[in-house]
């Protein structure tokens, strides 16, 4: 039962409910010729956690930016506490207590975490900065978020998940009355997410209104009071969380029934090992790791943030200094640079799409072919072939952009991720390493991607999936390697792969001798 929006405000039946704090009334937004929001109505009420869900490119971030003054609406109105407002800048919105936590990081890389948290809102003693207080508040905030990092470290040296926590701390420091969170958990492990949820309930108790979006629907069910679904820039439905389920949401989002998320695993046809890694180390991040990967197998890597999974893979790809032996199809290879790795049939999808994955200034075509450019150039780059490749990729990964030409920086987060995946697969590798492959991807597409990974294995390719989403690891992988602070903490196969088992190892509550692993 999809309830259409009644004119003059969301749900005519809202009479009995408390007056909204902030409202969108027929909000329209166009970028140049393209309209991406077609008259959205919806309202945030005191003391509620309101979830906004929708496919990639549905317009969630755009709507949030309109609400928080980052982007001017091109139609309709924003109402704050019963009056129409026109935020000319995010600053104005923040002064009115409306704060956005960006989906894409919004931090100055060279500045310290502390500087970023208080940027533009520095505390002062007279003319001077009040270092002490700011440092203290910063570490307090980060401690509350269970991210005990040195607040003087430049943000550039933090991990994606740590950056996300800094971003959240920055918003918390601006004592918001309306806090808008755009996929805050996309780059967090479940444990970190828990920490965030605690904060959310605390804020809720303090009467802060929270607008929240995520593609992890189970989260939504847990923390949200209200759920609004968008599809292709239009309002679809609005229900109390108590009256909805992940399936209903998914259906509203995609507009069709979703069969079960994960394809049947099937026994891995134990073929010859494609990749063997022995006593492999990445200074400072991973020590003396050994594992095997068979053709047609999906191997999961689980672990907490900072476990060093990313670094390990980057080492294997020749992106970091490393020591140890790597064998591909039995013969040892020397990987001095990513180029070597690619030549030996490896390909890696980075977890940091903005910083290391895509050239935000360039278009889809240039980005898609950047990794495999040799394939498109004899002497000259064959642009026609590139375009064809782009068409195929857009088709295959269902990349939705308002236009083909614009900067990929303007693509929605999820669609950027899909483009990145397409880029990684374009070199048609035998061994695929996917680091957080479904980060920020909507449930419909997730399903496609899982199927896609499954097919890769079926084709006899070897796949490694690093994921902080348990369900993903469990639902997708034939075998799971658990890492803990740079070392192997165990390996699980088939039926052993349970959330409980993984977490125990990840947290070091369960230790087993290395032999079993190697």
């Amino acid at each position, binding site marked *: 039962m999809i309830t259409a929006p009644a004119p003059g405000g969301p749900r005519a039946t809202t009479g009995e409910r408390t007056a909204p704090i902030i409202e969108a009334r027929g909000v329209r937004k166009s970028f140049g010729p393209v309209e991406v929001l077609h008259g959205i109505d919806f309202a945030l009420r005191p003391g509620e956690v309101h979830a906004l869900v929708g496919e990639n490119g549905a317009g969630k971030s755009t709507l949030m930016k309109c609400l928080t003054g980052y982007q001017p609406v091109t139609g309709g109105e924003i109402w704050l506490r019963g009056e129409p407002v026109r935020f000319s800048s995010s600053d104005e919105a923040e002064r009115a207590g409306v704060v956005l936590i960006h989906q894409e990081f919004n931090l100055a890389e060279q500045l310290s975490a502390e500087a970023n948290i208080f940027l533009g809102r520095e505390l002062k003693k007279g003319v001077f900065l009040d270092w002490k207080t700011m440092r203290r508040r910063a570490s307090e905030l980060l401690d509350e978020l269970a991210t005990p990092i040195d607040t003087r470290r430049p943000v550039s040296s933090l991990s994606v998940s740590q950056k996300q926590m800094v971003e959240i701390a920055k918003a918390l420091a601006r004592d918001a009355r309306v806090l808008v969170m755009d996929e805050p958990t996309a780059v967090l492990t479940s444990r970190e997410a828990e920490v965030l949820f605690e904060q959310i309930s605390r804020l809720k108790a303090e009467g802060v209104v929270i607008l929240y979006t995520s593609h992890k629907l189970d989260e939504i069910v847990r923390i949200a009071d209200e759920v609004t679904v968008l599809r292709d820039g239009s309002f679809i439905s609005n229900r109390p969380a108590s009256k909805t389920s992940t399936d209903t949401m998914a259906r509203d989002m995609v507009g069709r029934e979703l069969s079960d998320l994960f394809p049947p695993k099937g026994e891995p046809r134990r073929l010859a090992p494609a990749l063997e890694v022995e006593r492999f180390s990445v200074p400072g991040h991973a020590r003396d790791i050994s594992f095997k990967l068979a053709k047609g197998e999906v191997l999961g890597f689980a672990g907490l943030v900072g476990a060093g999974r990313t670094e390990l893979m980057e080492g294997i790809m020749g992106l970091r200094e490393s020591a140890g032996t790597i064998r591909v199809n039995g013969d040892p290879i020397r990987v001095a640079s990513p180029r070597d790795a690619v030549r030996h049939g490896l390909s890696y999808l980075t977890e940091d799409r903005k910083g290391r994955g895509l*050239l935000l200034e360039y278009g889809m075509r240039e980005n898609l072919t950047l990794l495999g*450019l*040799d394939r498109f*150039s004899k002497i000259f780059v064959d642009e026609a072939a590139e375009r064809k490749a782009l068409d195929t990729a857009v088709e295959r990964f269902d990349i939705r952009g308002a236009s083909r030409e614009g900067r990929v920086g303007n693509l929605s987060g999820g669609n950027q991720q899909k483009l990145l995946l397409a*880029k990684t697969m374009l070199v048609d590798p035998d061994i695929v390493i996917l680091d957080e492959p479904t980060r920020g991807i909507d449930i419909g597409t997730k399903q496609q991607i899982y199927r896609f990974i499954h097919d890769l294995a079926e084709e006899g390719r070897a796949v490694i999936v690093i994921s902080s989403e348990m369900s993903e690891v469990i639902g997708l992988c034939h075998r799971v390697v658990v890492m803990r602070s740079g070392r192997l903490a165990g390996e699980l196969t088939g039926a052993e792969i349970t959330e409980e088992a993984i977490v125990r190892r990840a947290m070091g509550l369960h230790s087993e001798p290395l032999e079993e692993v190697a």
Partner: protein
Amino acid sequence: MSSAETRPSTPREKHGRRLDFHVWGPVIALVALVLFGMSLNDQFLSSGNVTNVLARSAFIGIIAVGATFVITIGGLDLSVGSMSAFLAGVTIIVLNALVPVLGIGWGSILVGMVACLLLGLAAGFVNGILITVGRIEAFIVTLGTLGIFRSLVIWLADGGTLSLNFELREVYRPVYYGGMAGIAWPIIVFALVAIVGEIVMRKTAYGRHAAAIGSNDQVARYSAIPVERVRLVTYMLQGMLVGIATIMYVPRLGSASSTTGLLWELEAIAAVIIGGTVLKGGFGRVWGTVVGVLILSLIDNILNLTDLVSPYLNGAIQGVIIILAVVLQRGRKGAA
């Protein structure tokens, strides 16, 4: 950060507007200058004057094409001017030394040319290695080599002037003053370099890689681009182009001294940026650079066409025109 992001206005709109102005800005400025020149002096479009202007643009022009690539990868080369003085000096020494051996003739000159090119490559290699392997800011490295090349030429010339053997100069002269089908050689070479440069930038993997590195070298690394090698190659390319420019330059003045190629680096960089290449890297446009070079040397030429202003103020006029030329593409640049 790339400057294209610096406006909050909605990118695509901006993109559109930017494109127009960005593409046509320099051209409009150039046309305006030409019209102004015509209005001032009827000799302005005489083949003689046009040839002069184009031919003398060739040196800076050829060098600026290299600078376009260097700047596109997010680098900088301040040493080009004194590098060219150094190359000219050594080439002249080599040529003079060759006279007794190979005699007065093309033999000697060809050997000299090759020497000049190789030395240029070597000089670029030095810059490149220090920047990539040595991991030193390009600004510092090339500021250093600027001083080094400059004083090497002074030293070679004993503080004076190195001059090319006179008979040999007569043989060599046509390389600058001669031409083909009525077009002077420097113009032909400049045109070729520019066209090839434009193609390399637009159509080759190398050009794409250069832009990627300038735009975000991390992404480039993760895309299996041999970042350091591309950088090194780019600085060597710059060196080689300085070599080509010098080959054209030697027959023009037949000498090298402490003042040869003075401040060419500034002119080259200015031309590149007037042409619409982004100083912080990530986007380069060779043909724009060509327009930039023409604008710069037209300014000098026009100032010689009339006695409108006291020669003391030439510098001021140049300054004003340079700024005006860029105002036309304001939409684009991220100011800083």
